[in-house]
């Protein structure tokens, strides 16, 4: 029997420390030769743990107040917050009071994020160096440009964004973390026409699109991988108490998949839409995301030579 080439794909971990650590272990755990993190790597919130002049620590997080006492409790709180993908930082009250504008908070966010990514890069190197497991991390629409910069400094992490990556001599990977426009106007969004143009450029570089793997962060429009609640003014729309689910995927992604028919499409972006669907002959997969619960949703994609022999959703 031909040796199986196995890829482990996950996406949208949004800064979860637990999920990143699981990601690094997934290669050994599942026997995968390639780890692929398909976008939205970084978190959304920084959480101050403020030390007052009396030495007491206070923190408000997700509607609850915490007053950790001692290093152990602080450490536990930090671990819990990090597990959910948020970034805690200990700060003196006077210093915290100076963070009084959005620009200063943004700058603080960036510095915390940079430090956290650097820690992740080091962790990846410690775990994967010499393992023979390739680690590909692509930024997504929610990721700042510094993600590319910091992770590229790690010798064991490859960034497949915007280029063709050779995998096993038969299969190539193309990746883009850009998405179609969202209500949140995030870092890497393009209008559908521009997104399609960008992806066409990538597909044109492929040796053999029919055996390619396309890691396109936004799922194909109306594929079942892109169902999300309809929003109005960022409020979930309901009907009779039930959320109105609508297709929010990218038409550009759908067009390029229908046109080029890669062997596999790997997607994320819509956390609730854990699903597998076929667009033409292309198997498209969105493993969904439960990063806030510390669950790493992923997919195992296995090839024997050219043939796609297995695709399976997992939740680790």
């Amino acid at each position: 029997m031909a040796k199986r080439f196995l890829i482990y794909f996950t996406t949208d971990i949004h800064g979860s420390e637990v999920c990143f650590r699981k990601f690094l272990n997934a290669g050994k755990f599942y026997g995968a030769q390639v780890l692929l993190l398909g976008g939205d790597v970084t978190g959304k919130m920084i959480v101050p743990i403020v030390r007052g002049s009396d030495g007491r620590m206070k923190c408000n997080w997700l509607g609850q107040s915490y007053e950790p006492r001692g290093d152990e409790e602080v450490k536990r709180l930090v671990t819990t917050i990090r597990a959910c993908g948020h970034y805690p930082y200990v700060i003196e009250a006077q210093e915290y009071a100076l963070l009084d504008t959005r620009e200063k908070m943004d700058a603080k966010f960036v510095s915390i994020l940079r430090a956290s990514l650097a820690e992740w890069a080091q962790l990846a190197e410690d775990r994967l160096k010499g393992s023979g497991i390739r680690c590909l991390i692509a930024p997504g629409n929610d990721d700042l440009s510094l993600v590319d910069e910091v992770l590229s400094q790690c010798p064991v992490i490859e960034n497949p964004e915007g280029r063709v990556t050779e995998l096993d001599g038969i299969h190539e990977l193309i990746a883009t973390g850009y998405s179609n426009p969202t209500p949140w106007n995030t870092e890497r969004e393009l209008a559908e026409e521009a997104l399609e143009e960008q992806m066409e450029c990538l597909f044109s570089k492929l040796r053999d699109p029919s055996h390619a793997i396309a890691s396109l962060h936004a799922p194909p429009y109306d594929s079942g991988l892109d169902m999300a609640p309809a929003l109005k003014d960022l409020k979930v729309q309901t009907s009779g108490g039930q959320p109105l689910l609508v297709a929010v995927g990218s038409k550009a992604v759908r067009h390029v998949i229908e046109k080029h028919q890669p062997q596999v499409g790997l997607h994320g972006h819509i956390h609730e839409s854990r699903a597998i669907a076929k667009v033409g002959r292309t198997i498209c997969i969105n493993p969904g995301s439960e990063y806030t619960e510390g669950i790493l949703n992923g997919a195992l994609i296995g090839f024997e030579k050219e043939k796609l022999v297995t695709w399976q959703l997992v939740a680790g």
Partner: protein
Amino acid sequence: MAEQVSGYVRKSTGLVRSGSFQDLFIFGLSSVSPFPMGLAVSLFWAFAVFPHTNIIMAIVWGVVISFGGWISFGLLSAIMPRVGGDYLYVSRIVHPALGFVSNFGAFFSSCMAAGYWTAWYTQIGLGPAFSIFGALTGHPGLVTLGSTIVQPIWVILIGLVMIVLMAWVQSAGIKKTLLVQNICFYVGMVGFAVAIVVMLATSRDTFVHSFNAFAQTYTHDPDSYNLMLKTAGDAGLTFASKTGFFKLDTLGSIYIAGGIISYTFWTAYLAGEMKSAQSVKRQVGLMAGSGIVTGVLLILCTLLFMKVVGNDFFTAVNYLNTAAPDKWLLPVKPWYNFFAAMIANNPIVSAIIAFSFFFFIFPGTFINVAMAVRALFAWSFDGLAPLKLSEVNEKTHSPIIAIVIISVLTLGATIWTALSATFFTVWGVAILFAYLPILFVGIAAIVLPFRRKEFYDASLLGKSSAGKVWLIIGGVWAILEVALILFLGFRFSSQLGWTSWWMILLAVVALFVFGYGYYYIAKAIRKRQGRDLSLVFKQIPPE
């Protein structure tokens, strides 16, 4: 200072204001169990088989026992907000084979229920509506029509039409399905509200007068009200007004009341943005709140009807209708919609009350069909069923294959219920299977902090010193809830339709054998295809 300390959120995807509590509450009331249906059919069935029941106490206890499922499902849905339901909770926390057993039981129950509800389009909806309207407006042809279409052949044919209609609506997409569901629910509620207004404006004397005037045509007795009481007495019924309530009858009625109220835990099957990921109180409150309100509404409506029609009379007519139907001489069943339409004595108002009841059946049927489709999807994604089952049609963007399969199963169940009494023997099994997820989720809640410690620790519930306590309370309560249902089902088997207790036991054993067997066979097949199903829910160690 704590008030001024807060997190800073950068611009990023997915930060939404989740659906309001009110929205979710309405879902719990409307989609899961249109309680007017429960009022008309199940509650009054209680009077027929447990004539000395203190129905108010039974409803209260029905609410109390249901807390087990509400707490367990509520806590787990707060811990795992992006997924929903017994299959995933039990598979992840306890074992995937047991998760499949639980979910297959629920699937079986949903398919049977969908068939049963489909039969109700004629048996409880159109048939009685025509009979009521025809009898009240002096159109015997309509009365005949009403009694004709509840014959098995029409139950099946009209059921088939409704199944095709439902499949068509579903294939048009979720938006249209919800629209139709909501329209049906609100039309039904308009009729129900009109019925309530009519009853509120009616005194006992007026009711007696109206009933006598109407029933004389059929009983040839000017005092049909008291005739019903006498006839029921002669048929063996003793009245609670003379004997007092019997504890055993009240106990047996808890089974029926719980069956109407407990299913608000199905709101857990909604995932994603509708849940506030960190809000335990919200999730539990939603389920319990919908259930408590359902219970309160049931109590209020029951008290209203008792006040208007009289407890003894109500017991008598339901007893006659069930135990001695040849002595119930009226062409319509003694449900609230009949009495309200009769009192209204106005063709338009009577028509609204009579025909609006039909519209409750769509939401009740749909939720069972949707649960069954959801199960097929989950199994398909996890490799326990062919991927084809979750395929979405490229033109209609609907899961046509799953809809067709469930429609065929629904039709089969409809034919079975129309043609054979054996359906009701198996129906007892189906009801039990519907409760089993509560049992397994209760077990999952108890063991979660120990079997999936990292899971539990990652949740906000894990931060609370009382988190484990609440999980254990919910889990134990859920187990007791199901144990009580089992006890009641066996203890009152003849009244509740558990006609073969040994069959019930055999069915549970068969479910476990089938469920585990299916899981491991599927696992073996997938392994030969290169897919290891034991990896689906296996936790990756982070360290």
